[in-house]
């Protein structure tokens, strides 16, 4: 092969990764509006954007580059996302709502559609345990449960009705105590349901406008995002009389709406109105702001 041809081939080989990465990286397309976050076992941060995109980000990446792995029509409202583990493998569960119809979508971590279940009525929050996915009904206080093995055409079955709640927002699952946490949109409270005894108790009340919940099994803390109060609270659920403590606060918050805790203790907070992701140290008191990704 002649020298110019070799140089051209070498250049093409070098440029190929650049070309492919520019095609898949979503950094500047439209405003970034994270409405839900979840961390996979591999440590990647999965982000649901209000525009209907599912993005993945490696927290170790200093540039905060995000890759789009799935995208939904803008006629569906993307409400919540959770990464759940089925037989040792992580999968993504997403709630989509269009008017009075909702869908729970299941995707693989690389964005391949796997299955979906439909539900009449708006759904809000989603979380998973080892066998099922749970979805909260925006109205009537119902939580639905759908075992992972359920065929697609079956609608999720009612699992529990919180009689003290009118509208349920986010959900979180405590795998240690088998407790389901549900946020009350009307009162700004969180109710804990012991799924073994099926007894519920109000864990905390009056925390403003709760927009997200996330449970950290290693520290046994529940993180609660107060969107209107612009504060992330944490509650030690192992304590006898748990009290909310400020876990993260920033003057850059507008309506924080998403929270996830990474394995290294980093607390990720998404704010669709601030168009940003915030990383806090969950170990430091009051949450030390580590970085902001726009």
């Amino acid at each position: 092969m002649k020298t110019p041809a070799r140089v051209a081939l070498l250049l093409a080989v070098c440029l190929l990764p650049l070309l492919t990465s520019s095609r898949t990286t979503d950094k500047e397309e439209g405003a970034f509006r994270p409405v839900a976050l979840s961390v996979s076992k591999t440590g990647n941060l999965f982000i649901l954007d209000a525009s209907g995109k599912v993005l993945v980000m490696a927290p170790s990446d200093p540039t905060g580059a995000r890759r789009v792995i799935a995208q939904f029509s803008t006629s569906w409202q993307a409400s919540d996302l959770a990464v759940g583990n089925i037989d040792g493998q992580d999968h993504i569960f997403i709630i989509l709502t269009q008017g009075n119809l909702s869908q729970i979508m299941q995707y693989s971590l690389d964005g391949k559609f796997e299955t979906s279940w439909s539900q009449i009525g708006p759904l809000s929050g989603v979380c998973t345990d080892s066998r099922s996915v749970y979805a909260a009904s925006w109205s009537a206080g119902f939580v639905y449960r759908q075992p992972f093995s359920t065929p697609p055409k079956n609608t999720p079955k009612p699992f529990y009705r919180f009689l003290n709640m009118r509208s349920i927002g986010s959900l979180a699952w405590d795998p240690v105590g088998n407790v389901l946490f549900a946020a009350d949109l009307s009162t700004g409270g969180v109710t804990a349901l012991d799924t073994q005894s099926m007894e519920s108790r109000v864990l905390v009340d009056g925390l403003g406008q709760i927009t997200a919940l996330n449970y950290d099994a290693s520290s046994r803390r529940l993180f609660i995002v107060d969107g209107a109060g612009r504060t992330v609270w944490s509650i030690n659920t192992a304590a006898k009389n748990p009290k909310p403590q400020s876990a993260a606060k920033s003057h850059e918050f507008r309506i924080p709406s998403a929270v996830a805790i990474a394995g290294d203790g980093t607390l990720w907070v998404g704010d669709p109105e601030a168009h940003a992701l915030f990383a806090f140290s969950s170990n430091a008191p009051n949450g030390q702001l580590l970085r902001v990704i726009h």
Partner: protein
Amino acid sequence: MRAALQTRRGLLFAVVLASLACPAWSDGPKVTLSPAGVQDNAGSVAFRLRAGPDTVAASSVPNVAPVQSSQNHYVIFVDPALTLDKTNIVLITLYLRSNLTNAGPSYRYIFSEIPSGRFLDCKSGVGLSIEDGTTTETAFVTLPLHTSDATIDFVETDDHAPAVPIDATSATSVDIGITNKLPDMDVLVTNLTAAVDHDEKWRSIALSPPFDPSNPIRIAPNHSQNFKVVVTPSFWKSVTNTVLPTTETQADDTLRLELSYASDNGGILRPFEVKRSLRFVNWPGAVLFGLIGAALGCVVIHFGTKSSGPSLGRILLSRCSSSVILIAIGVFLVANGSKFVLLTLNLDPRQLLAAFLVGGFAGVGLVDLVAFVRGLGKASAQRGS
């Protein structure tokens, strides 16, 4: 004793820590929004304070017309940009400033709407009270109120629109009007798509102009917006659909215009679907089949009656012209709402068989037809005698 004292101290310390951690509101006045009934009590909206009072800089207060409190001690600013959070809760931000001290602080309050009942999103006056420990004042602010019921349609269209005739040989524009039913709030169309049930019958379906999601379409209250869909049928598939007449309710395909919209601002996303029946018509084909029908009728009657009148060429010319005129009149009448329904079949002269029959009738000619029938009668009478 010492241990008990230490325990108490520890408890006191914990209480102090907990109080530091709990939401610490500034010492601003207490603001309460009264529940508002809407649309003859079809529904109501209550308000709940979610955050505040928070002390904010004067520069944070939006530049909007202030509302004076009853004794002019306070001015209230309503942030026009409402926030719909991901759980579909509408958040309203109010700012309060004292009129008594020029350099006094401004306070921010965030309220959420708690709607109940079925009503259309609307603007409504809401009573507000301000308590600062020495006085209680009232004010009246106008707020956009939103229902949480996602099943209510804020837009409407003509549900009984007749089937739209689609020219089989060229592109046709289908106009669909959407009316905003809201009394005093705009509707923002954020997504718009057009589709048909049978894709194989079409070459293209496109919105004109194309919808740009970054530029939502705004529809004013009680106003209509016309959306145009240009459809181009697949020639042979559509022509085969124009051969036989169809029943009046039967359409060749259905056009679906799907839109997502929300009341502006703060409304939840709502879907709306408009269906329009489409019926293929074929003008050039109809004229051609009309001419063929006329020619055949003419030839049959000419040789059947063995008439010694004008030459076949002249008759052919006049009767073909008559058939074209008849079809043109029929097309004009049908296009203006007339119907020729025979045994539930909707005979549209723009469809091929109907045009062929009209042409055949014109080709035979009424006088010749009568003569032909009389001739048949005479022949049978002679056979009988």
